[in-house]
């Protein structure tokens, strides 16, 4: 038994199709024909809520899934096709009560004005449980779906060009997040006054033009949607290198990283904290979560055997940007606590097979962490920010109480 009491961890799950293993859809529990129904998503997210998880993320993309990085493949043996993640989150929101809902949005092609009001509305329909995961699209085939711009074709050996292209896309994503956040603040919380005496519904002095001018776009504002319940819904991003670490440090509330051991976790967290300091955000809570793909079974060896069986079905061993864990809930709890010692405040687990590994998380891992005092035993807040210990931010446009 560990002698130091573990500090509580935060837990999220990343939902994508039937799970992260490309052959996951072939498991009997997967029910792949239901993938495009509301029932599929409601069932998964309600299961995550039964496990008291902080939030779910929902993957998305503006093109078909592919096993090749820069282009679509012609495979017929893997899940292809998906529904819009914001709409999935919204569809499930009224059927859940506590769990956070964090859909992926693609900054490269979508309008920040549309995203801002969509996530604000998700916050209204979920009464304070919305967030977003911002992602870039470096794929030229996805740019061709919009026809407004080209993105340089990124071939992996040519890393210098790739780095410049990716830097540009992340700069644009940073602008995107800035616009989205300003629009959330473009209404003060008490802008609606319903003053029958003067006939005014709003106090227009409490609505603000955001007047954003950037390299890629300019946006006037204000939003058409009032400030959402959380004030600022959660902003999250996955980060693999210096440029994305900077985006996380400057713009996010939660960053997901993919360390393979505790030393690497410690190193990445230090780099993010340094960037956070440089960005003048040192006093703000910024969670850094570790991302892991998980195969979970109670029987020792069963998870590894299951992965091998799925790999055989897929025709190749499964690899990932993130650490791929196979083992028991106890072993995973040990690993999470060890990685957390590197400075992580939580984890985003990617279930290899949703129908199997998600219940293994909620019914195996969660009780194990609870026994160790490392995870909540009841939802302790009504909003996603509340669950993550983030306060409701003041509105950047509102005059400070002192000067009011």
């Amino acid at each position, binding site marked *: 038994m560990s002698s130091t009491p573990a500090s509580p961890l935060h837990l999220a799950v990343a939902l994508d199709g039937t799970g992260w293993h490309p052959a996951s859809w072939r498991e009997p529990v997967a029910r792949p024909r239901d993938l495009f129904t509301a029932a599929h998503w409601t069932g998964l997210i309600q299961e995550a809520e039964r496990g008291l998880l902080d939030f779910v993320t929902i993957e998305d993309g503006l093109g078909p899934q592919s096993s090749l990085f820069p282009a679509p493949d012609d495979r*017929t043996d893997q899940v*292809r096709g998906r529904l819009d993640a914001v709409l999935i989150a919204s569809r499930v929101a009224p059927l859940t009560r506590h769990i956070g809902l964090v859909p992926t949005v693609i900054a490269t092609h979508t309008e920040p*004005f549309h995203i801002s009001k969509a996530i604000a509305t998700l916050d209204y329909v979920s009464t304070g449980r919305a967030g977003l995961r911002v992602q870039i699209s470096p794929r030229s085939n996805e740019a061709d*779906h919009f*026809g407004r711009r080209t993105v340089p074709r990124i071939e992996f050996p040519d890393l210098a060009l790739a780095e410049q292209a990716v830097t540009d896309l992340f700069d644009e994503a940073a602008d995107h997040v800035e616009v989205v956040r300003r629009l959330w603040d473009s209404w003060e919380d008490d802008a609606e006054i*319903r003053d029958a005496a003067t006939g005014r519904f709003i106090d*227009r002095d409490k609505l603000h033009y955001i007047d954003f001018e950037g390299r890629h776009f300019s946006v*006037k504002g204000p939003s058409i949607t009032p400030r959402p319940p959380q004030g600022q819904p959660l902003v999250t991003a996955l980060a693999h290198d210096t440029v994305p670490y900077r985006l996380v440090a400057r713009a996010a509330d939660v960053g997901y990283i993919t360390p393979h051991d505790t030393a690497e976790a410690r190193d990445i967290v230090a780099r993010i904290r340094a960037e956070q300091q440089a960005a003048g955000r040192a006093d703000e809570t910024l969670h850094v979560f570790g991302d892991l793909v998980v195969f979970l079974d109670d029987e020792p060896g069963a998870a590894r055997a299951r992965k091998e069986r799925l790999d055989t079905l897929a025709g190749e061993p499964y690899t990932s940007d993130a650490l791929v864990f196979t083992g028991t809930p106890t072993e995973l709890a040990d690993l999470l606590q060890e990685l957390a010692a590197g400075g992580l405040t939580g984890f985003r687990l990617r279930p290899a097979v949703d129908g199997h590994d998600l219940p293994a998380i909620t019914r195996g891992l969660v009780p194990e962490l609870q026994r160790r005092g490392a995870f909540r035993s009841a939802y302790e807040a009504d909003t996603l920010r509340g669950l993550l210990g983030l306060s409701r931010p003041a509105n950047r446009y509102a005059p400070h109480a002192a000067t009011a």
Partner: protein
Amino acid sequence: MNKPLKQIHLAAHFPGVNNTTVWSDPRSGSHIEFSSFAHFARTAERAKFDFLFLAEGLRLREQGGQIYDLDVVGRPDTFTVLAALAAVTEHLGLTGTINSTFNEPYEVARQFASLDHLSGGRSAWNVVTSWDAFTGENFRRGGFLPKEERYSRAKEFLATTHELLDSWHGDEILADQETGAFLRDAKAGSFVHTGQHFDIHGRFNVPRSPQGRPVVFQAGDSEEGREFAASDADAIFSRYATLEAGQAFYADVKNRLPKYGRRPDQLLILPAATFTLADTDAEAEELAKEVRRQQVSGATALKHLEFVWNRDLSSYDPDGPLPDIDPDVSDQHISKGRAQVRMYRDPLATAREWRELAAAHNWSIRDLVIETGNRQNFIGSAATIARTINEFVQADASDGFILVPHITPTGLDDFADQVVPLLQEQGVFRTEYEGPTLRHHLGLAHPDHAPEAAGV
């Protein structure tokens, strides 16, 4: 034998950003909390309505360089709130107004296909074409679209969206766990579109949804707008709801259909209308007057006059006579982001007409706006309203109505409880939903089941 009775279509418009809403009424609730939308949608579904309707405006309206503050301001994102409403209803159609100028086909097609999957086939799209640079300031593309191109972009946008949605036929997903074939066809979703506004190609990534395509509404009123509706829409959201104007519009639009190889029943005409319901006709008349005075305050009346005069009229007394100066007819308009402004196509003539009307009836500015600014209002007891609505529909003034009550979110409750049963007794409105999809409710062919009459 008499002509068979037409079945009435009824829909509910969540009252939003306009002066229909009496937000100062103590019963008026939030226009933004989801509980308001859920209550409204559940009432519409309890009443077996065809669908719920949401309008949209992508920039807050301004007048005289300031954000307009006299009506409700603020609304949720259309797709997001409709997806959430799909969770609290089972049958009700979900119609969203989505602009074709400030969106892209790939995204809109994904959103409608997703909404259609997540609602089991209940999505509809009101394609609007507001093009102005004022709204454009909120978007990357800015205000680049000349007015003349709004319908050419809308038409191509809609066609492109259909190409994307049709790029999946519905039989591609095998999901055969034994053989390992998820897709029947590796190229599912392939599309190429080359046109004046869009030059795009690749793979669409949402499989075919229950309705295949959302039901398409059109709401513009110009000559081009009517042609667009006749060639491409399943329904029109119109503003002509009085008997005579409704009949004229109905005949005009339905007569445009044959040249596109379409039958009259392939395009439904559904005007916006409001209602004032009370126990007796006399009480309802009283109530309607009161509601109108609440909707048109003195300040609102002056602002409304400014749409026509295009001048700052704030120094005028709303209870006094109309201005004797003429409207400013320059291109710069005092009011921005407001579709109604375009209703007054000849401001000088309108001003003259209004002055004569006011003089003849001894109306103040506020009286005039109250008397002329009204949309179709069905006023009376439940029996009167049910009878009048049925008369209008049987007389081909419309195929039904999109009702905009003046109280949020409970404004539909009495209509559902009192008027709908009478329409059902008359055999002109459904007592149960007959099918799962919005196309079933509207009597429209499913694109995957029946070839369209236009065919070619």
